[in-house]
């Protein structure tokens, strides 16, 4: 990643946004994660918040402790120092998924759309190692990319009012797990019994931006053993 590509733009009275590349990729995500960690170390109390996303990092700072020109220089220094260091690759996490018509109400439609069998869709979803590109929409909601083009599908025209916790969805070339019951428009193909967001635990999320995720198919029995419930499974169908 060349330094020339990192562009620092004003976002607000106490924030700048750093753009690292044009397109998201695992290397950009690693660079963003590394930069965020270094800024945290170098500036600690001068920082209020950091928001990593696909190709950018929003830096919110305390204007009483540091001004715009100084933070801009600090960020440039951190990026130029990190570009010749090995990047953090992030944690590798395997998440269990119970793929089924019971937990994946859009599995049949997605297979038809992709002109594949349901088993193919499930196999292809597990073949890719995904990068956590961004977190947002809800606490612990991780945007994972990129899904194989063969199983990409646009969001539902009308979002569901209730998607159960743990539902695994596909939207275009992204996939995600709903960390809590919420409305949502992604195509649901299965359900993960793991708690993606648990406010009473530290850390509260299973993944962070820059981590790598793989999915592994489990049976209905394993799903229930791991804490997945029939109730939440059947509510996916409604």
């Amino acid at each position, binding site marked *: 990643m060349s330094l020339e590509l990192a562009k620092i733009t004003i976002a607000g009275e*106490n924030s700048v946004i750093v753009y690292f590349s044009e397109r998201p990729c695992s290397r950009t995500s690693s660079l963003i994660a590394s930069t965020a960690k270094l800024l945290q170390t170098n500036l600690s109390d001068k920082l209020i918040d950091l928001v990593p996303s696909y190709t950018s990092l*929003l830096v919110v700072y305390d204007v009483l402790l540091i001004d715009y020109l100084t933070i801009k220089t600090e960020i440039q220094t951190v990026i130029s120092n990190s570009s010749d260091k090995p990047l953090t690759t992030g944690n590798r996490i395997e998440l269990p998924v119970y793929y089924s018509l019971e937990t994946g109400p859009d599995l049949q439609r997605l297979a038809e759309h992709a002109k594949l069998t349901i088993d193919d869709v499930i196999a292809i979803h597990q073949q890719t190692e995904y990068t956590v590109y961004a977190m947002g929409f809800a606490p612990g909601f991780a945007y994972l990319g990129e899904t194989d083009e063969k199983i990409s599908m646009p969001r539902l025209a009308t979002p569901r009012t209730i998607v159960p916790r743990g539902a695994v969805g596909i939207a275009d070339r992204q996939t995600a797990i709903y960390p809590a019951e919420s409305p949502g428009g992604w195509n649901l193909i299965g359900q993960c019994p793991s708690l993606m967001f648990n406010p009473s635990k530290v850390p*509260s999320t299973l993944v962070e931006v820059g981590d790598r995720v793989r999915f592994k198919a489990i049976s209905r029995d394993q799903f229930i053993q791991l804490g997945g419930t029939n109730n939440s499974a059947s509510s996916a169908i409604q």
Partner: protein
Amino acid sequence: MTGLKVINPGMYSLIQDGGRQGFHNIGITTGGPFDRYSFGWANKLCNNLDYAACLEILVGGLVLESSISTQIAVTGADVPIKINAKSVAGWSTHNIAVGDRISIGYATAGCRSYLAVAGGIQCPLIFGSASTVKREKLGGLTKDGQALAQGDLIPCNTSQENTSRTVAQQYRPQFSQDTTEIRLILGYQYSQFDPSQLHLLFNNEYTISQQSDRMGYRLEGPAISYSQSEMLSEGICLGAIQITADGQPIILLCDRQTIGGYPKLGSVFSPDIDKLAQLMPGRKICFKAIDLKQAQVLLRQSAQ
């Protein structure tokens, strides 16, 4: 447990402290008081820490009964305040005895008031804050994002504090029915907008729509067009002004989503977010650009 019992929660009353910082990276928003200026004064009047938990009362209708002797102060919107049958002044401290009833009537100007209690509300914290964010199911009395409800007990400690304090008139916000000028710092994608579109924004009035809340204020006015087709989601700072597909601006506020994929023109200068907090749907605003350097100088001056 002692404190203030909720006899009537009013239209919509929330516990708010300084807000949640440092968790945007996992998708947790800030929350916190919408009008930080009035919130700050409520705590100062009660000799509290700057970010002690207070009540943010939308419009009014709140009735509390105290099981402790303490002091309270109400700032923000112009609201009738009663302690038992007696009317008392806003922006001042009042002594409260065991059994006293505190009633906040409906706002006659502005729309959000802040009620501070000496020592602050003793609320459990989640992610370092008591701030209530309904959408995230975080904060408040039970840490799950609930607004105040009838029968709730707001935990507070007895206070011996009885110094009388009042905020001088010159420091209180002036409410008027005129169009409110909102200063903004140009940023994000603003250079990708055609100058004619920025001209539209700066030379027209926008009306605050009915679909406005602590997450964002939707505006209605001349549509701002742009040609950019697709954008990757990116971090959203407080006050960011995003332009949706229909060309209408949305100002993203304290309960905003942490990332989003609409182009943004920049962000509202935070002292003017305090002004927005006091504007109900239907009120008109206009925009004026402010230079970043000047904005930061003003922020440092006001912190002194």
